């Protein structure tokens, strides 16, 4: 994805969120006055509530957004499980949240096979998010194959960083 556009989308999403929180009081859907008065004093920003957008950037398992894979594999590794369950929970709690899963491969082998492999990795992550509360329309998958390496040396260390699926929020809530 084009970085400036991604930043713009993010900025719009954040601006949108800000606007929503302010408007919440006057929204017809949220017209119950009892609930509104209840919400204001009992929702401090440090709240662990799964609908608080700040949590996405503070809770470690939500801040973490990359799952790594073994060579020519798309099986989710145990160290990525907690992180992915967290994002699944976030999707369940925030029906408006949208994720683009970007699948990647290391440089070894042919490019189009690696595009397919990247998609398979994205799909593995999607399946896990859906099994943990996410819904189909919340998660899209796009593969970059070996075209977007994080690291460009031809070494085992570098390759292990490039075999990944990245969670990119296109809408947080």
């Amino acid at each position, binding site marked *: *994805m*084009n*970085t400036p*556009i991604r930043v713009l989308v993010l900025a719009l999403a954040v601006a949108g969120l800000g606007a929503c929180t302010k408007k919440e009081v006057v929204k017809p859907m949220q017209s119950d006055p009892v609930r509104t008065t209840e919400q204001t004093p009992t929702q401090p920003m440090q709240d662990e509530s799964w609908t608080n957008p700040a949590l996405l950037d503070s809770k470690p398992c939500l801040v973490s957004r990359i799952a790594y894979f073994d060579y*020519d594999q798309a099986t989710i590794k145990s160290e990525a499980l907690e992180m992915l369950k967290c994002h699944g929970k976030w999707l369940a709690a925030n029906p408006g949240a949208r994720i*683009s899963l970007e699948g990647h491969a290391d*440089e*070894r*082998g*042919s*490019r*189009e*096979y690696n*595009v*397919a*492999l990247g*998609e*398979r990795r994205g*799909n593995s992550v999607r399946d896990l998010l859906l099994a943990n509360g996410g819904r189909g329309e919340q998660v*899209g*998958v*796009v*593969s*970059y*194959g070996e*075209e*977007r390496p994080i690291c*460009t*040396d*031809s070494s085992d260390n570098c390759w292990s960083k490039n075999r990944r699926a990245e969670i990119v929020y296109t809408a947080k809530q």
Partner: protein
Amino acid sequence: MTGEPMQRLISALLLLILVSGARIANAQGLEIDIVDGREAAIPVAIVPFAWEAASMPDPSAIDQIVRADLNRSGQFRVLRKEDVVELPARAADVRFPTWKMLKQDYLVIGRVLSAGEAGFRVEFELHDVLKQQSLLALALPVRPGEFRAVSHQIADLVYEKILGVRGAFFTRVAYITAKRQGEGKYEYAIWIADSDGFNPQRIVWNSEPFLSPSWSPDGRYLAYVSFERQGGHTIYVHELATGSRRLVSSFKGINGAPTFSPDGTRLAVTLSKGGNPEIYLLNLANNGLTQLTRHFAIDTEAAWMPGGNSLLFTSDRSGKPQIYGVSVDGGTPERISAAGEYNAKVTASYDGRLLAMVQGNKNVYRIAVVDRERGGAGAVRLISPGPLDESPSFAPNASMILYAAREGNRGVLYAASVDGSVRQRLALPDGDVREPAWGPFRQR
């Protein structure tokens, strides 16, 4: 001004001109880098062509281009220019004993004459040194700026006369470059150039990647994959003469690996719109789709066999990527590749006899050429050293293979003779070069 500073200034200017001239030449072309020679190569002498036209000589030296072409093929060993001791321009001037003494089997001579308004005529002759006989004497018309093209045509004619196989020097290649434009920013571009890397022309460029350029059989179109649309891949068919392009595939998921059918009417493509990458045939006249493979594994990188009755593709249905073959009407695919842990990105020679693919063994990826008419140990030959070679593409006469390799942190292209005896690097001055695709024969 005294003489000495003036002289210095002139030498400095001359040096500047020389240096910049050399840099331009380098930026245009490729580094000539014969990695390995072949004992059985045929010795040929090429005499610099005499310039007999009225105007200033064209800077393209025909003999140098022909020499480089023939050397690169691996079939010939052309006499070094400094060993060309006589400069005959016509048959009457040839002294055969000289060339026999230099152990040359063949001799090419020629001259450039004025012809018509601002035009030229190149006359050239091929002689058999041992038989002291003229094998070929032809005159080719040349317009200004066409000397490189005509030189490649002369190399093709010499190649064909001696070997009985059509030469493929007067052809074009397509490739992809990635140039870093700053932190995390790249410019990706698709280029076409002459078969020796000269005359590069940028066809299309974007900040998002391109993949898998594929020539139409008539050389008029390139099909390729672009990531330029947000969140998805698309396949375009691009007309080279006009620069106009048509979006032919933009389904959800992968739209990848396009390759034109031998008759040019269809593209084999990889689509994952059904949830999993499968090979489809896309009819270019009506956009109709026919699904060719049905398997939960990855199926991709389709290549047509000549005649268009069957295709080869990469599949990991056995656990690792291997090459399979399937009829154009569908049916159960059959595994083709035998040796190697990893085989992918296959391509077939024009006659279907040779298959080239990427073969991986213990982290080393090399280009393997399979001769389907040979059995046993001789059937598979690894023609590149690795460790990260990919994207083989046959010349239209199957004499050579272009492929991509990694050197340091960048991609470079190699042209190798099909037996692997000669390899030559085609390097651009900067950037990362990948995915070469050798175009079809061109009309002379």
